[in-house]
């Protein structure tokens, strides 16, 4: 069963106990304090914003009212939705490549200490180089190799991958190296081959770490995709949300800029929620992070 409560989990044990006391109907989580409290704060904030804009008469090109943003979003939906789709595609492809490459390289690292020693510092360098600074280079190089419209897409995927890749690599490496020592001895005792040890012991042990890495990477892949598009700027026919934000700000269409911004943030939150649900689902039987407790 998917566990919606835990997405909004707080550290307070009381709140969690209160949650557990309720019957777990599919809509029960909507009434839980974890949902009601932040929604109330959000609504209050929007109300103050709306009233403030209306009463003070701030022009919409400085600060549009929430109602104006919503109206723009509906009116421009035909352009914003394809932009969202492009950004989502870049994010998903980059994230997928980051997951596969991060996992495989982490496995490679734990097979040989020498490989890890030799290459890990370069993974760190890749992570600490500001993506904004190297994005123009990447775009330039990719244009030499991939001709036509596809080049921007590929360049954006590469930028998003660079940002998203490291948390998965470093978390999974840590996880693969923190296997219970007694279990390693046990596998040795029963003469498990390296493949069995990896498949039945190291990978399952690393699972919580890997999933933690996924949650960080999901958001980072989106940020990478947006940053890359900011740098790539114009050019190409398929443009994403970053392009919409950029163009709207040039044309002083601030309500539209807010609408695109809101969609970007919403996408980020959605990615986080989906990955958290997936993580809780996969770990529901055994890991402390996903186990519901009454005390």
């Amino acid at each position, binding site marked *: 069963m998917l566990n919606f409560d835990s997405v909004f989990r707080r550290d307070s044990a009381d709140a969690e106990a209160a949650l557990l006391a309720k019957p777990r109907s599919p809509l029960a989580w909507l009434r839980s304090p974890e949902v009601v409290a932040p929604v109330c704060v959000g609504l209050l904030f929007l109300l103050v914003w709306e009233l403030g804009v209306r009463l003070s008469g701030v022009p919409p090109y400085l600060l549009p009212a929430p109602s104006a943003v919503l109206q723009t979003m509906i009116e421009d939906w035909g352009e914003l939705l394809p932009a969202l789709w492009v950004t989502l595609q870049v994010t998903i492809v980059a994230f997928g490549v980051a997951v596969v490459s991060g996992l495989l390289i982490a496995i490679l690292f734990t097979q040989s200490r020498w490989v890890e020693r030799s290459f890990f510092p370069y993974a760190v360098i890749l992570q600490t180089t500001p993506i904004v600074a190297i994005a123009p280079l990447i775009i330039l190089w990719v244009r030499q190799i991939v001709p036509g419209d596809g080049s921007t897409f590929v360049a954006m995927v590469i930028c998003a991958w660079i940002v998203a890749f490291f948390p998965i690599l470093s978390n999974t490496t840590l996880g693969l190296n923190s296997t219970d020592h007694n*279990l390693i*001895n*046990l596998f040795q005792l*029963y003469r498990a081959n390296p493949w*069995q040890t990896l498949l*039945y012991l190291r990978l399952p042990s690393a*699972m919580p770490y890997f999933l933690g890495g996924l949650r960080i990477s999901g958001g980072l892949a989106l940020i990478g995709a947006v940053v890359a598009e900011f740098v790539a700027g114009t050019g190409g026919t398929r443009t994403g949300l970053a392009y919409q934000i950029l163009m709207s700000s040039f044309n002083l269409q601030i309500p539209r800029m807010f609408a695109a911004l809101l969609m970007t943030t919403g996408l980020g939150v959605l990615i986080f929620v989906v990955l958290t649900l997936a993580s809780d689902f996969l770990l529901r039987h*055994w890991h402390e992070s996903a186990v519901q407790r009454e005390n």
Partner: protein
Amino acid sequence: MNPSPAFTLSNVSKVYSNGTTALHDLNLAVSEGQFVSLVGPSGCGKSTVLRIIAGLGKMSAGDLFWGGTSQRKLAYVFQEAALMPWATVQENVRLPLKLAGVSRRASEAAVREAIALVELKGFENAYPRELSGGMKMRVSIARALVTKPQVLLMDEPFGALDEMTRSKLNSDLLDLWSQKQWTVIFVTHNIYEAVYLSNRVVVMAARPGRVVADIPIDAPYPRDQEFRTSALYNAYCRDVAHALAGAVGTASEVSSPINSQASSTSTMFGSVA
């Protein structure tokens, strides 16, 4: 009838890479079907002996000879249950067979039998976190039994459990042992447990780890709760306690002039600092 030897450790020494001598010139011959307890102060190398028998650690000098049984027919129960938290009881118990390449269907009966032996029927699909400490230990024992071992190595298996659970598991273990006639090497620091279970208690001393006393417990099996209150039992416990006190005394003479565990530990830390 003279029982055949299960294995013999002869002049075994173990020196760790940091120079610590864990074992020095240790001799131990164990016959098939014996229940041998190893008792001794912390750091006397009890666990090291088990690891060497299991082939998990190399010895620096000496030999290990196997008699009728072979190293392949042994099972190891660790101090912690060491279960895979992501797998059910059934899957945890199946692990040794799975690693040996036995198919799921072929291992079914053996897994069911091992779970029944440790009285965990009905918990096949439970996850370790849903079990108590004692039940986790039972799963760990079931996993050891599933390969039908001839030699069972147990490293303080009940050390972390409460007294009630420990005594229940003790008598269950004895029942199983009398049915299956394994050779058991049981490491513990609990004298009463050692005397109750074993037909032989080997007392070890630390720094360097060596055997200082080998006390046969000539009391008939089955041993019930009555035995735990008998004069014979108490006499044996006293013997082992005496030997152990001597072992702790000599250990301290070797390492430091002050006769206490705590002070020898602090000397160790002092030398590091």
